[in-house]
């Protein structure tokens, strides 16, 4: 039995300071208050003064409350028993199921040796043409969805969770609205996908500190599955809340802020989570899709900016669709040469023509006269938006490529597309 300490000498925000000896950095403690028992984590040691962040928050905490150090870092149960279950950010069940304590692993395990990684080479099909055709998602990729508040990013994540060809899906909710949590649960349940999902949910009403744990706990569980050969997709929504929680704690700890109040180690903190995305040599993989809402649609805001430097591309969600310009999957070249010989051709041609369509729209709005070519582009643009870009479209990659040819044939003659003759002969609809 570990000794309990009762001399709490400071409570500031959700961080308490207690006098204790022999405590390890990042160790976990149990804090017993009149509101119940909460876990807390050591974040600073100064001689005998130990500062801890209390996951349940400090509201109602007394200076005489008991703090018992457990002598180990934060751990989480892993394994197949977790499938279909819902937990909060500290790993406590939210679904009235039993608490789990088998196969405990430390969260925040060391980094993967780069020589044990392989070059990503497998596509993850999602049934969304804007992803599959134009910016293919690749196993072990880390991709943020840059979005303005109000965009249907959670709907998009839910659809990917239902359709993505992976073994296991882990959903980490950070500062999630309760409605959105229910939405995820109901949608996945309705599509029978819940049994291959694990939820770690921190809602907006929960204490800030718990938010910080969600990515770590989700990724620790994912890593365990990946080491056992499973292909895991981790969905995180919304990582901006994670960064804001970091900001809150670091300000509480009186750290010097670097940019717009965010701590100087924001990049390292985000990177140590995103870099968990991996394709293990001889085992499974972890792929991360994370929503990052951009305050004020500003991509130079510290959170999307730092994220962009870490991740392998980004999806821009704008006006309810994945914007073809600005969205980028840096790994698509690794896979889209192997799907179908016309994949890259369709990808390049349709985007180039769509760019011309946007120019034509601009000309039209300035009142210029539309040429015959402009008219063709206008027709093409509308078809493209309706049949390809809309998030309602749900077709496999091959169908989407066929549809692409059909749209091109409906609007243009083969020469107008600038596609190589050999490909035209093979694929142009007759």
């Amino acid at each position, binding site marked *: 039995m570990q000794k309990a300490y009762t001399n709490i000498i400071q409570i500031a925000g959700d961080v308490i300071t207690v006098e204790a000896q022999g405590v390890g950095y990042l160790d976990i403690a149990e804090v017993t208050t009149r509101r119940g028992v909460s876990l807390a984590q050591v974040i600073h*040691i100064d001689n005998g003064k130990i500062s801890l962040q209390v996951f349940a928050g400090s509201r109602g905490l007394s200076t005489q409350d008991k703090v018992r150090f457990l002598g180990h870092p934060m751990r989480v149960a892993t394994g197949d028993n977790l499938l279909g279950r819902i937990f909060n950010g500290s790993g406590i069940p939210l679904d009235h199921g039993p608490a789990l304590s088998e196969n405990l692993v430390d969260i925040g395990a060391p980094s993967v040796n*780069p*020589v044990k990684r392989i070059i990503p080479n497998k596509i993850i099909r999602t049934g969304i043409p804007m992803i599959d055709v134009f910016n293919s998602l690749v196993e072990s990729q880390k991709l943020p969805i840059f979005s303005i508040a109000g965009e249907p990013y959670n709907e998009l994540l839910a659809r990917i969770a239902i359709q993505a060809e992976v073994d296991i899906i882990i959903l980490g909710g950070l500062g999630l609205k309760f409605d959105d949590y229910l939405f995820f649960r109901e949608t996945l349940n309705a599509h029978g996908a819940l049994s291959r999902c694990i939820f770690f949910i921190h809602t907006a009403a929960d204490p800030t500190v718990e938010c910080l744990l969600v990515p770590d706990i989700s990724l620790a569980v994912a890593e365990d599955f990946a080491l056992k050969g499973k292909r895991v997709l981790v969905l995180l929504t919304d990582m901006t809340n994670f960064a804001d929680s970091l900001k809150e704690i670091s300000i509480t700890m009186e750290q*010097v802020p670097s940019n717009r109040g965010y701590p*100087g180690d924001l990049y390292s903190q985000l990177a140590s989570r995103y870099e968990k995305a991996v394709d293990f040599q001889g085992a499974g993989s972890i792929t991360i899709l994370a929503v990052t809402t951009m305050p004020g649609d500003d991509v130079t805001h510290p959170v999307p900016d730092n994220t962009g430097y870490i991740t392998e591309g980004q999806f821009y969600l704008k006006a309810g669709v994945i914007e073809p310009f600005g969205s980028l999957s840096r790994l698509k070249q690794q896979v889209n040469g192997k799907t179908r010989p016309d994949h890259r051709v369709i990808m390049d041609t349709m985007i180039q023509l769509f760019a011309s369509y946007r120019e034509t729209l601009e000309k039209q709005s300035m009142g210029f006269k539309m040429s015959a070519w402009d008219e063709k582009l206008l027709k093409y643009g509308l078809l493209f938006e309706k049949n390809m870009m809309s998030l309602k479209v749900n077709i496999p990659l091959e169908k989407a490529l066929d549809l692409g040819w059909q749209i091109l044939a409906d609007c243009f003659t083969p020469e107008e597309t600038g596609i190589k003759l050999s490909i035209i002969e093979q694929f142009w609809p007759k």
Partner: protein
Amino acid sequence: MEKKRIGHVIKVNANMVTAQVEGSIIQNEVAYILHGEERLKAEVIRVRQNRAEMQVYESTQSIKTQDVVEFSNELLSVELGPGLLGQIFDGLQNPLPALAEKYGFFLKRGVYLEALADETQWDFTPLVKPQDKVLAGSWLGFVPEKIFKHYIMAPFSLGGSLEVVSIAPEGRYNLKQVIAQLKDSSGATHDVFLQQIWPIKIPIKAYAEKLRPLEPLVTKLRLIDSLFPVNRGGTYCIPGPFGAGKTVLQQLTSRHAEVDIVIIAACGERAGEVVETLKTFPELIDPRTNKPLMDRTVIICNTSSMPVAARESSVYTAVTIAEYYRQMGLNVLLLADSTSRWAQAMREMSGRLEEIPGEEAFPAYLESRIAAFYERAGVVRLYGGTKGSVTIGGTVSPAGGNFEEPVTQATLKVVGAFHGLSRERSDARKYPAIDPLISWSKYNSFINPEHQEAGHAILRRSNEIAQMMKVIGEEGTSLKDYIEYLKGEFFDFIYLQQNAFDPVDEATSQERQIYVFGFICGILNSEYKLEDKAAALHFFQQLRQSLRSWNSAEYGSQEFKKIEEKIELFLEKNKPEKTP
């Protein structure tokens, strides 16, 4: 034996640990925190009374107060000797493949392996004889390493004139066998091994003199070599927003640059990029040597999720290894990606030390550290008369893509060339995305200066007209201006941009650059009979198409000549009638 100096942990704040020490403390010495079975490496970065504040090169999870700290009396150092080439090290010079073999998927904390395998035998050939006088850094003999003669040098740490007492005869030796003994002016003798140890934060200065970098370093990227060249021994930086292609540019430079050895320091960037280099380089053949590219490459990798403090050591480890090979009379190119991550590591540490922050919370010593790092580049004349060089190219990742931020500005002050990447160019899929309107270089190019100036001039003029056209429209622009505009666009498209996926176009030799630049200058300086804007546009579109296929044709081949003739014919046809 001297008693080990020890201390005890009293404070833990992320990767900064403070220890209370009995006895003396040396600034920047290496210390080990003993935690259970683990020994965690740390470096003293500030001393306050009897307290040593240390940055820890590992995760500090579970460290307790009262954990013992052992001080080593040594500064953070690297092993220098045969066997470095083709290796992949972390920032503390741990060989990653060996770690993977021993410990599997993860980087276990507190494990340090020998950087160079002691047992490997090397064929040594002596170059000096007893009684010879030598200096620190003089070549005593050599062993073959890959395609190079790896010279074994008198230890850099020795001073003054040294006398060779003994030297091993030709034969096979490992790193632990004495191969020579040297006597210094005070009469003390020193053993010399195939390998030596050097502290990474101190430049190696065992050379006769430092020279001005005057010889161009050919990167085979036309935009760099022709307009914004870098010289051997020079420095350059590549700032750019995310997704603008910094890393791709570095990767292609590491493949094609005409240097002997490339050191890649992946500092705080994605692991995926390192993986690509380390999986493809062993298979890519260097056309100049016909050996795998890996044979001339050393990778130092501290990716973004690896311990932050080791980012700093990774850039210094890299530059120390670069200097070591320079001492053998080789030309070394060091590519650091990205120096911003290193600066951020300094910022994190500075915050934990509670130093008064400078701009954007970066420490006040940011500029001097960056300057001192780039100053380690240079061409030197060695004691034997041979020249060697270290060229440093660093990427910078400015927050928000804004070049006004402190790291970019501190870097621009000390480098010789600036290759600024722009979001507009990369969005328009122009490769390389170096913006010719903001970039500059203080080095001399192998291109005729007049031609070079003409190139810059047409780009500037074309941009001015393009800006003007946005306001007054194409209709309001005069035909003469419109043609100037098209010329600039044409020059950009056909010469500055390269197709990284075309085996010929991705790398252009010096000879070809001189020839083609001259040819294009001829076009830019000529007048053509173009009646109206549509004709002008059509003319340049046609020209563009032919030059594009010219770019894909092997230099000097039949096809190359054929296309050239075709272009000349086409130009001739459009020349205005000569006025008598």
